[in-house]
C-alpha cells in the first residue's frame, strides 16, 4: 500500500512538464484580487509584443486574501514554492519586513531616475531603511463623496466647505433640513480615522519608527469624531461597522447619509453596490484642518513584491518595472482597474480623460484627475514598522469600537491602552 502511494506521489511529481520554452519563460504570480489578474494579463500581452525575444508566460494564481498571505510567508520560511511575483496587502506587508534579512528584492532601481514623477508618500510607505520593497497599485487618494441631491436640498454647496469646521456647520444644516446624518464613521476599519490623522502629519508611527498612536493629535482627532457623533449629532457610526458591509451599501444607496470619506478606489463600490446614486455623487477634496492645510491622505494599498528566492528575479523585475512603473502601465491601472496610479505625470494625459463607466457615474467624473492633481502634494506619508499590522488591527478592533461604538472608554483611554499593548509585546 505504501509503495503504491509512493509511486503515485513520484509519478505526480514527474507529471509537471518543464517544456514551456515555446510560450516564453514561466513566471508565477500570486494575488488575492481577481481583478488584478486582468491588469497583469493585459500587461503581459503588451510586454510580449514589445520584447518578443524575452517572452513571458504569466501563471496567475488567485487565492483568498488570508490564504495567499499565509502561503507566501510559509513558502518564504520553507524556501520552497516561492512565487516570482506576489501582491501583498498593506495590512500584512509589514510582516515581510521583519528581521534583518528581508526576503524581498530591493525594487528601488525600478523607480530610479523618475522618482519625482511618483507620489512619494506611496513609495515611502513600502520602504525600509530607504530601500523600496514593494510597488503600490494605487495612491488611494482620500476624497469626500457628496450626495449632491441631499446637499442641494439642504442648501449646502460643497465647494464652500474648506475646513472641518465648515463641514461641521454644513452637517448641522443637513441634519436640520433632512433629518439625515451628514456622514458615517467606521468603527471596524480605519478609513474615517487614519486619513484625518494623516492630514495633520501624524500616523501610528513616526519617521523613526517610534509609536505615535496615542499622541496628542491622534487623541484630539478621535475626540473630534466622538463630538461629531455625540454632541453635534451630525454623524452616526457606520451600519455594519465599515463602508464595505452589506448593511452600509443598502443604507447609503437609499440616501442614508449626505457624504462619505473614502479613497478614490471606493468609486468601484459605488458602481457595484449603490446603483441608485448614479449621477448624484460629486467628488471633492477633504476639508482641511485649517485654511490652506492638507486636503487628502493615501489609504489602503497593495504592493507587488518579488521574493529574493524567486527563480527569475531579473525578468520579474524588468516586467514589474514595465507593468507598474512605466507610463503605459500606469494608464492601464486607471483604464482597467479604475485606480489612481502612482505616477502623477499621467494624470492629465488624454487617456485618463476619456469617458468610461466611472466618469459617467460621478457628477464631476470627467474632472476626477484635475481634483486629484490639485491635492497630490497634500498627501503625507505613513510609516510602517514591524508592528504595523498589530497596531492597525488594534485600532480597528478595539480603539474605534471602545471609543465610538460602546463608549466604554474615552478616546485617550482607548488609544493609551492600545499603545501599551503594542509596546508590551
Amino acid at each position, binding site marked *: 500500500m505504501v509503495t503504491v502511494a509512493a509511486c503515485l506521489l513520484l509519478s505526480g511529481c514527474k507529471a509537471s512538464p518543464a517544456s514551456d520554452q515555446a510560450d516564453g519563460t514561466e513566471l508565477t504570480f500570486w494575488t488575492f484580487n481577481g481583478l488584478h489578474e486582468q491588469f497583469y494579463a493585459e500587461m503581459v500581452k503588451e510586454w510580449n509584443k514589445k520584447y518578443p525575444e524575452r517572452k513571458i508566460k504569466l501563471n496567475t494564481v488567485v487565492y483568498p486574501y*488570508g490564504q495567499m498571505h499565509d502561503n507566501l510567508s510559509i513558502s518564504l520560511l520553507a524556501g520552497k514554492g516561492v512565487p516570482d511575483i506576489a501582491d501583498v496587502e498593506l495590512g500584512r506587508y509589514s510582516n515581510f519586513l521583519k528581521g534583518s534579512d528581508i526576503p524581498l528584492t530591493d525594487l528601488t532601481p525600478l523607480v530610479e531616475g523618475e522618482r519625482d514623477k511618483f507620489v512619494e508618500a506611496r513609495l515611502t510607505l513600502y520602504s525600509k531603511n530607504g530601500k523600496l520593497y514593494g510597488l503600490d497599485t494605487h495612491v488611494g487618494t482620500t476624497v469626500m463623496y457628496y450626495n449632491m441631491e441631499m446637499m442641494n436640498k439642504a442648501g449646502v454647496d460643497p465647494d464652500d466647505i474648506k475646513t472641518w469646521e465648515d463641514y461641521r456647520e454644513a452637517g448641522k444644516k443637513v441634519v436640520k433640513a433632512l433629518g439625515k446624518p451628514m456622514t458615517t464613521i467606521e*468603527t471596524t476599519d480605519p478609513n474615517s480615522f487614519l486619513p484625518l490623522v494623516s492630514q495633520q502629519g501624524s500616523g501610528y508611527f513616526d519617521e523613526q519608527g517610534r509609536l505615535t498612536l496615542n499622541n496628542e493629535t491622534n487623541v484630539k482627532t478621535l475626540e473630534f469624531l466622538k463630538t461629531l457623533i455625540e454632541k453635534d449629532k451630525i454623524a452616526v457610526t457606520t451600519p455594519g461597522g465599515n463602508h464595505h458591509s452589506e448593511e452600509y451599501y443598502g443604507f447609503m444607496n437609499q440616501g442614508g447619509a449626505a457624504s462619505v470619506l473614502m479613497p478614490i478606489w471606493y468609486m468601484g463600490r459605488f458602481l457595484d453596490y449603490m446603483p441608485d446614486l448614479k449621477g448624484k455623487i460629486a467628488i471633492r477634496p477633504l476639508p482641511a484642518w485649517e485654511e490652506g492645510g492638507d486636503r487628502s491622505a493615501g489609504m489602503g494599498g497593495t504592493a507587488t513584491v518579488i521574493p529574493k528566492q524567486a527563480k527569475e528575479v531579473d525578468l520579474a523585475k524588468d516586467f514589474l518595472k514595465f507593468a507598474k512603473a512605466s507610463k503605459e502601465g500606469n494608464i492601464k491601472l486607471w483604464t482597467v482597474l479604475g485606480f489612481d496610479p502612482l505616477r502623477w505625470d499621467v494624470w492629465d494625459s488624454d487617456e485618463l480623460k476619456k469617458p468610461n463607466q466611472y466618469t459617467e457615474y460621478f457628477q464631476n467624473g470627467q474632472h476626477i484627475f484635475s481634483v486629484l492633481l490639485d491635492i497630490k502634494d497634500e498627501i503625507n506619508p505613513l510609516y510602517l514598522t514591524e508592528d504595523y499590522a498589530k497596531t492597525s488591527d488594534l485600532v480597528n478592533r478595539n480603539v474605534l469600537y471602545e471609543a465610538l461604538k460602546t463608549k466604554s472608554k474615552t478616546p485617550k483611554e482607548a488609544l493609551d491602552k492600545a499603545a501599551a499593548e503594542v509596546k508590551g509585546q
Partner: protein
Amino acid sequence: MKTVKTDTVHSFPPVSRKRKIRRLLYSAKAAPYIFTAPFVLSFCIFFLYPLISVVIMSFQSILPGEVRFIGTENYQALNNPTFYTALFNTVKYTFWTLLILIPVPLILAVFLDSKLVKFKNVFKSALFIPALTSTIVAGIIFRLIFGEMDTSLANSILAKFGASPYNWLNNEHTGMFLMVMLASWRWMGINVLYFLAGLQNVPKELYEAAEIDGAGTFKKFYHITLPFLKPVSVYVLTISIIGGFRMFEESYVLWQNNSPGNIGLTMVGYIYQQGLAYNNMGYGSALGIVLLIIIFICSLISLKLSGSFKKEGY
C-alpha cells in the same frame, strides 16, 4: 523450527519470495505491525513530527533565513490581555456548548426512540441535515439573519413583538450567543445520533421489569436509560470538550477573525492571527502547546470524574 524453514527458503529463491511474503502476512507476530503500518506512518508524519517541531518552534524566533532560539520568551509573552480574552472566550464557549449539546440531544434522542412519537424519520433527518452543511455557508446566512439593520430577519421579528432592534454582532453577549447557537444548530443532529445508537443497547426487558415493579417514566429514565447511556455520554463529553477548545470556523465566519473588541477571538483564532497574520510562528507555536495542555488536562479531568479509568467500565 523456524530457522529450518528459512533455510529451505534460501535454496529456492523464486518460489520462496512469494512464500516469504505470505508467511510474513500470516505470521501472528508480524501481521499486526504490517496492518497498522499505514496508520503508524501517517501518525508519525502528520502528527508526531509536527508535534515535536511545534515544541521546538515554541522556543524559537522564526523569520525567513533567521531561526534562532530565544528561550522561554514566547511563553513569557503569553501574559497579555489579548491572550486572556481569547482563553476566556474559549472557556465560555466550551462551557455553553457542553451545557446545551449534551442534555438536549440526550432528551431529543429519548423522544425519537419512544414509540409514541410519529414521523420519527422526518425529525431525525431534519435534525441531522445541518451537520451536512458547511459551517462557512451556514455562518454567512447566520450573519445576514442577525445583521444590525432593522430589516435583518432577527431584528424584524423582534420588531413584530415591539422590541427595539439589536446590534447582534457588535456585543459581547449576543456575539457569544450567536457562536453557541451556530454550533448547537450544527452539532445537535450528530450528538442525537450518538445517543440514539446508545439507546439501542438498553435491554427492553429491564423496562418491562421496572414497570412491573411500578416504576414511572421518570424513574425508568433515571435508573435505566441514563446509566446505560453513560459510555456514550462520556464519549460525547470528551469530543465536545476538544471540539469546543479548538473552535475556529464559527468565529471566523461571523467576523473573519476581526471581531470588534475581540468578542469572538478564540484560542485557535489567536494562534492563526499570531502565527500567520502577524508572521510570529514561534509565539503561535507556544500558544498551540498551551492549548494542547489545556485540552489534555480538561479531557483527563472529565474522564476521571466519569470513572472511565476504572476497569469495570459500565
